C-alpha cells in the first residue's frame, strides 16, 4: 500500500465507479438541509465531529492563554479575574463540550449501528435532537463565556458560585443543564440500539468490544447525567432566589453540593475514558490481527468500571470535611475501581503477543494511549491514598493526573479512532507519513506539557493559581517546560486538522477494508450507503475472528452480485506486488 501514480488511480477510479454502488451516505443528498435535518446516524456523527472540533479549538485556545500566563511567576499577562475566567472556560469547554461528547458523539454514533449490523440507531430523530440540544447548550454556554464569562472553575463549588461570584454562572449553568439532555438521549439511543437492533447472529458475545464499552458509557450517561442536571438546576434556583439548600445561612450544607456534583462528575470521567478504551480495543485487535486477549474480561471490566465508578465520588472530598471513615470507604473503593482498568491494559498488551503488529497511525496512538493511561491510572492510585491526597489535593499533581487520563487517554483514543475509521467515514485515506509524524509530535508535546506538572504539584503548587512564588526558581523552570510542551502539543494537534481536511479532497480512495478489520463496519463500502449495508448481514463468526485477508475484504459475505473485491482497484496492483 505504498505509492500509486495518479494515472493508475484515475483509471482505477473509473473502473471501480462502474462496478460499485456509487451512492453513499455522503452524496445521497445535497444541500445544507439534507445535513441539518438528517436522521442518518453517520451524518449526525459528522455533525458532532464538526461541532466538537469547534469547541475543542476554543478550549485549546484558552489552554494556550493559561500556559502563557504561567510562564512567569508574576501574574503579568492578564488580571487575576481574567485568568480565573480563562481556566474556567477551558475546563467547561473541554469537559462538557469536548471530552464527554467527542468519542460517543462522533465515533459512537457513526459506528455502533454499523458494528451491530443495523440500518440506523433505534431512534434516529432523537439522535438528531440530541445533536441540536448539544448545539443549543454549547452555544448558550459559549455566549455566557463571550458576553462576560464565568469565574467559578468548571466545578461550580458553592457558596462561591451561588452567593459570591457575579459572573454569568446561571447562563453557563443553563447551557450545561441543556447539554446534559443531549448526553442522556445519546446514552438512551446506545442502550436501546444495542438491545434491539443487532443483526441476525450478532449475539452479545460477538459484539465488538467497542459496543460493550459504549454500552457501559451509556449506562453512566443515563444514571449520572440527571444528577448533575438537578444539581445545576438547584444552583441556578439558588442564584435566582438568593437562598437555597446549599446556603449555610439556612442551615444548608455547601459540601452537599460537592457530593452531588461529584456523584456525576466522577463517573463522567468514565464517560470520557470508556469510549476511548472502546477505540483502543478495536485498534489493537485490528492492527495486530488478533482477537482481544480475554474478550469477556475486557467486556465485563467496562461494566465493572461503570458500576464501581458510581461508588467513588467521595475521593474528591478527602479534605472537604468528610468523616474519616467515609474517606476510608471511598478510598478503598477507589483502589478497587482501578483494577478493571489495569485488567484492560494487561489484556491489550497480551493481545500483541505473537500478533502481526503494524505501525499504522491508529496503532501508534494505541501505544501512546496504553503508556500514558498507565501513568494516568497509576497516579490515580496516588490520589486515592488518603494520607497522600492530603498533600497533593488541589495541586498541579491532580492537574497532571487528570490530563494524563483525559488528554493521554481520551484524546489519544479519539485521534487513534479518527485515523482508524477515517477511511470508512470519508472514503479517503489520510497521508500516513504525516500522520505518523503528528502522532510522535503529539506524544512528545503531551509529555513535556504535563509531566513537569506532577513535580510542580508535589512541590506544593496549588491549582488555579494566577501567580506563584517568585522565590521558587524551580517552579518557573517547570512551568516554562510545560508551556514549551504545550506549544509542541498544539502544533501536533494542528497537523491532523490540516491533513484530515486535505485528505477529504485529495486523499487516496479508501478500500472497504483497508487494515483489514473483522467488524461489520468493514463489510460495507467506504463510505457506506445510507442504510449502511447492501444486504442485512448475518453474523456467523465470533468477534475478531480473522479469516484470510481476501475473504475479509469481500463485501457482503456469501452474497452474490456484490463487488467481489472490497479492495480499491487503485491499490490492488501494489498490494499483489508486496505479496
Amino acid at each position: 500500500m505504498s505509492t500509486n501514480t495518479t494515472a493508475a488511480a484515475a483509471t482505477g477510479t473509473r473502473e471501480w465507479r462502474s462496478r460499485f454502488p456509487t451512492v453513499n451516505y455522503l452524496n445521497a443528498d445535497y444541500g445544507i438541509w439534507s445535513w441539518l435535518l438528517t436522521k442518518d446516524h453517520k451524518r449526525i456523527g459528522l455533525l458532532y465531529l464538526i461541532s466538537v472540533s469547534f469547541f475543542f479549538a476554543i478550549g485549546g485556545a484558552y489552554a494556550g492563554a493559561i500556559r502563557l500566563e504561567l510562564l512567569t511567576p508574576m501574574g503579568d499577562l492578564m488580571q487575576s479575574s481574567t485568568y480565573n475566567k480563562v481556566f474556567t472556560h477551558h475546563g467547561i469547554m473541554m469537559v462538557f463540550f469536548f471530552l464527554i461528547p467527542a468519542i460517543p458523539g462522533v465515533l459512537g454514533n457513526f459506528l455502533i449501528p454499523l458494528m451491530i449490523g443495523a440500518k440506523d440507531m433505534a431512534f434516529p430523530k432523537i439522535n438528531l435532537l440530541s445533536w441540536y440540544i448539544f448545539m443549543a447548550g454549547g452555544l448558550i454556554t459559549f455566549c455566557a463565556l463571550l458576553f462576560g464569562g464565568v469565574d467559578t472553575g468548571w466545578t461550580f463549588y458553592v457558596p462561591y458560585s451561588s452567593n459570591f461570584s457575579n459572573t454569568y454562572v446561571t447562563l453557563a449553568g443553563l447551557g450545561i443543564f441543556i447539554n446534559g439532555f443531549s448526553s442522556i438521549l445519546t446514552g438512551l439511543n446506545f442502550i436501546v440500539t444495542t438491545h434491539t437492533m443487532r443483526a441476525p447472529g450478532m449475539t452479545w458475545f460477538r459484539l465488538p468490544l467497542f459496543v460493550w464499552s459504549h454500552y457501559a458509557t451509556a449506562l453512566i450517561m443515563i444514571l449520572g447525567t440527571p444528577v448533575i442536571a438537578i444539581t445545576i438546576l438547584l444552583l441556578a434556583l439558588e442564584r435566582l432566589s438568593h437562598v437555597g439548600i446549599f446556603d449555610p445561612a439556612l442551615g444548608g450544607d455547601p459540601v452537599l453540593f460537592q457530593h452531588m456534583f461529584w456523584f456525576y462528575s466522577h463517573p463522567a470521567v468514565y464517560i470520557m475514558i470508556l469510549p476511548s478504551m472502546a477505540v483502543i480495543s478495536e485498534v489493537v485487535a485490528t492492527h495486530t490481527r488478533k482477537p482481544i486477549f480475554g474478550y469477556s474480561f475486557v467486556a465485563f471490566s467496562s461494566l465493572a468500571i461503570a458500576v464501581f465508578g458510581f461508588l467513588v465520588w467521595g475521593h474528591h472530598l478527602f479534605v472537604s470535611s468528610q468523616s474519616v471513615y467515609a474517606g476510608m470507604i471511598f478510598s478503598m473503593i477507589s483502589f478497587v475501581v482501578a483494577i478493571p482498568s489495569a485488567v484492560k491494559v494487561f489484556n491489550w498488551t497480551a493481545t500483541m503477543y505473537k500478533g502481526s503488529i503494524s505501525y499504522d497511525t491508529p496503532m501508534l496512538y494505541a501505544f501512546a494511549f496504553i503508556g500514558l493511561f498507565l501513568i494516568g491510572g497509576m497516579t490515580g492510585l496516588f490520589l486515592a491514598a488518603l494520607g497522600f491526597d492530603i498533600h497533593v489535593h488541589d495541586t498541579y499533581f491532580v492537574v497532571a493526573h487528570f490530563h494524563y487520563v483525559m488528554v493521554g487517554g481520551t484524546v489519544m483514543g479519539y485521534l487513534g479512532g479518527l485515523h482508524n475509521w477515517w477511511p470508512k467515514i470519508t472514503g479517503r485515506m489520510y497521508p500516513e507519513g504525516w500522520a505518523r509524524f503528528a502522532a510522535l509530535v503529539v506524544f512528545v508535546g503531551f509529555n513535556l506539557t504535563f509531566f513537569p506538572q506532577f513535580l510542580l504539584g508535589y512541590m506544593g503548587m496549588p491549582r488555579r493559581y494566577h501567580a506563584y512564588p517568585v522565590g521558587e526558581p524551580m517552579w518557573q523552570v517547570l512551568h516554562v517546560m510545560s508551556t514549551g510542551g504545550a506549544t509542541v502539543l498544539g502544533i501536533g494537534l494542528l497537523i491532523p486538522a490540516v491533513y484530515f481536511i486535505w485528505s477529504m479532497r485529495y486523499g487516496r480512495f479508501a478500500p472497504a477494508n483497508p487494515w483489514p478489520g473483522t467488524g461489520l463496519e468493514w463489510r460495507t463500502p467506504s463510505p457506506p450507503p445510507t442504510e449502511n449495508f447492501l444486504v442485512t448481514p448475518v453474523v456467523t463468526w465470533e468477534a475478531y475472528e480473522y479469516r484470510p485477508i481476501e475473504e475479509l475484504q469481500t463485501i457482503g459475505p456469501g452474497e452474490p452480485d456484490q463487488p467481489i473485491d472490497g479492495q480499491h482497484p487503485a491499490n490492488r496492483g501494489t498490494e499483489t506486488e508486496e505479496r
Partner: protein
Amino acid sequence: MSTHAEAIEHGHGPEAAHEALAHHFDNLEQQREAGALGMWVFIAQEVMFFGGLFLAYLIYRMKYPTAFMAASNHLNWKIGTFNTAVLITSSLTMALAVWATQTGRSRKTQVGLMAATLLLGFIFLGVKAYEYNEKYVDGLIPIAGWFDPVGHNVHIPAGVTTGQYQMFFWLYFAMTGLHALHMIIGAGILLPIMWMAWRGRFSPEYHSPVENFGLYWHFVDIIWIFLFPLLYLLGAHFGKGH
C-alpha cells in the same frame, strides 16, 4: 432481549410493511420493543433526576427533624389527599386508554379516556396553584426578601429557626414545582397523541405512543405518591395534624 436477533431472523416473513413502521426497523414488534425499552431507560434517568432532590430532602429532614415536622403542618393534608386521589384516578383513566387502544375500542372511547386523563391532570394543577397561593398569603415563598412567615402571623415553634423553616419550603417548592412541570409537559405530549387517536392511527398492532405515554404518566404519578407523605403527612402524623 438476547433472543431478539433470532426473532428478527424468523420475523423476515411476509408481514406487509405497516404504515407506522419506520424505515430502519425490520418489523413492528422490533419497533415496539425499542420504544418500550427507550421509555424505561428514560424513566430510569428521571428517577435519578428526582433522586437528587429526594436525597437533599432526606439529608435535611434528618438534620432538622423538628423544623420539618413543624413546617409540614402548614401544608393542608386534606387538599393533598384530594389531589392524590385525583392523580391516581387519572392514572386509572390512562391505563384504560392504553387498554382501549390495545383492544381496538372505538376512537371515541380512546379519546374520551385520554381527555379524562387530561382533565384530571388539569384539576391537579389547579389545586396545586391554589395551594401555592395559600403559601404566598402566609409569606412562605422561599425567596430572599419574600419569606416572612412571622410577619404574616405564622407561628414558628420553639427549637426551630426560620432558616430551617425556609429550607423545608424551598424543598417543597422545588420538588412539587418540578413534579408539576412534568405534568405540564405530559399534558403537552398527550394532546398530539389524542389527535392521532382521533384520526384512528392506533390499533391492536400499533399503539406504542399511547403505551409509552402511559408509562410516563404513571411514573409522574408515582413521584407524587412519594412526595405526598414526605411533604404533607409528615407533620400531620408526627405533629398531630391541624
